[in-house]
């Protein structure tokens, strides 16, 4: 078990790592709001499960939290900084420095090897690279550690990502999300394409590594069965006053 510490976090004082206030968002061509949220807070290192059926705006919420889209009113803050206050350019940089992503599927670049995929965020962000290299380690070194943590042996490390099974790919995605110690990991239904056993195994690994890295985890899914492993459960239809049965996007 390796120890990793967050060196660049202004959150050591215990503030929220993610905070959404009075957020109202609608897609450009839609008449109604897709997201209408009063308040959502995530503490540092907290594991949050957001549950909701399809169409209630889960992915949109994640995009808002990640600063990919900005709300028409209200604010979303990451580490005390509001996404709306940053330019598009700065938002991208800020996002890669502090946020890790896991999608439902097709997370990896098929033409890069496993190791190269994991290292990618560090190549695109100096902050992440610096974090990875703290304590005399190296980007490659931390990538290998994470892969081992996610139970991916050395022999797959140099294979092209396209040659891995779905389960393996998701685990690589998790390693990639955690390299460089981002303060937040956002996961958009990462287990939906895995079968039962793999799902539990994956969750075990993910939660353990997030804990060790002290990264907050926001996990969005429609599957309630795994909710109990998390510290906090949020029902999106309850939170989101604008939830609609069809997906508006």
């Amino acid at each position: 078990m390796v120890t990793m510490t967050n060196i660049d976090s202004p959150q050591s004082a215990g503030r929220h790592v993610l905070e959404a206030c009075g957020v109202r968002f609608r897609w450009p061509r839609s008449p109604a709001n897709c997201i209408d949220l009063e308040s959502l807070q995530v503490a540092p290192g907290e594991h949050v499960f957001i549950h909701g059926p399809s169409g209630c705006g889960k992915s949109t919420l994640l995009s808002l939290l990640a600063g990919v889209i900005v709300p028409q009113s209200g604010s979303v803050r990451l580490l005390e900084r509001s996404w709306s206050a940053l330019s598009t350019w700065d938002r991208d940089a800020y996002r890669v420095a502090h946020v890790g992503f896991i999608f439902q599927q097709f997370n990896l670049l098929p033409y890069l090897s496993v190791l190269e995929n994991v290292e990618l965020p560090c190549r695109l962000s100096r902050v992440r690279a610096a974090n990875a290299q703290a304590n005399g380690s190296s980007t490659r070194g931390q990538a290998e550690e994470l892969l081992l943590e996610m139970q991916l042996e050395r022999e797959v490390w140099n294979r092209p990502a396209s040659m891995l099974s779905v389960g393996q790919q998701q685990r690589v995605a998790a390693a990639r999300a955690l390299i460089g110690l981002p303060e937040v990991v956002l996961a958009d239904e990462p287990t939906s394409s895995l079968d039962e056993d793999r799902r539990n195994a994956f969750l075990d690994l993910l939660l353990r590594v997030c804990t060790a890295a002290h990264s907050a985890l926001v996990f969005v899914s429609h599957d309630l069965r795994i909710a109990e492993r998390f510290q906090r459960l949020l029902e999106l239809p309850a939170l989101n006053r604008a939830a609609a049965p069809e997906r508006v996007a």
Partner: protein
Amino acid sequence: MKTFLRLAARSAWNRRFVLSLAVLSIALSTFLLVGIERIRSDVHENFAQSVSGTDLIVGARTGPVQLVLYAVFHIGAATNNMRWTSVEALSADPAVAWTVPISLGDSHQGFPVLGTTPAYFEHFRYGDGQPLVFRAGKLFDGLFEAVLGADVADALGYRLGDHIVLSHGIGNPNLPQHTDKPFVVTGILARTGTPVDRTVHVSLAAIEAIHLDWQGGAPIAGFAIPADMVRKFDLTPKTVTAVLVGLKNRAAVFAMQRRVAGFKEEPLMGVLPGVALDELWQVIGIGERALLVISTLVAAVSLAGLVAVVLASLNERRRELAILRALGAGPRHILLLLALEGALIATTGTVIGVVAVAVLLPAIGPLVLTRYGLALSLSAPTPTQQLLVAAVLGAGWVASLIPAYRAYRYSLIDGLTSQV
């Protein structure tokens, strides 16, 4: 930047089969452009150096270009000849320093045969005033002796002492042969890079001799004169094809030209070789410009192919781009990535094209030299060639911006949530 370059390279390598077609088409168009420019400048150089030191070429009154073509390049057939008496009159003119009469009409295995006097080897110059030099043997002395140009000897593998038979006429593969009067090779000339290399040289008397018992292009039936008997006849030619003239004062060439044009005994014309060659080059120049325009179009088409290939692949790559967005690549990075990819393809294609020119042209050089008498130079790229290569490269890079811009727009629209 290095990251994106590597990403672009890996991504392109992943789709290398489809992209290699784009690379090949760009390579081909570069090869065409640069190769044509090289050949054009080589042809022009060879051309301009074919004759030197000759002030006037005199022949029957045809056109200046035709006269130069057969007097200097030994191409084509003279429609009219000039009389020997005119040659003598010319030689007697006080302004004339030397004359070299020449006679064309026969050939040997596709190479033209030139009948001339020893003065040809003394006065003919090429390039920068360089004289003809023998690499083996010597000038013809006896009647049925021949001096070969370098290409004739190399292509047909002749050595001193070999016997050759001349054919009557040029071009047709089934020509009547002067089999009863074979010639022996007494000399082989060193290579000049001019039409001299492709020519078989014999004396004027020999031309007369082999046609003594011929009439109208065929041997007279039952009237063959054997080789050893011909010497008894008067072998002064009655007509020749043209005369090369050197003047004592070059500036008086116009006066001489006027005198030739006003010659009372028969219609003649005199041509300044430099002027006639320039005129000929103007005609060829139109063709060469057309070639260059076509090559440019080919380049444009191949670049359009590149754009099409990358654009077509964009749809499948939207997921890939969304992943990169999620990992911190901004829309401008995506633009850069795609632009780099296109630039890589264009650069690879261009480099392959240039290397192909550098490798292939020397390889086919000897063949071209033997077949067409054209010496291809192995020199470094001329400024024009460099400009052409830069133009193709530049156009390729700019063309890559089209799919790059498209990808940029996609990445703005899709954000992180592309469900493709």
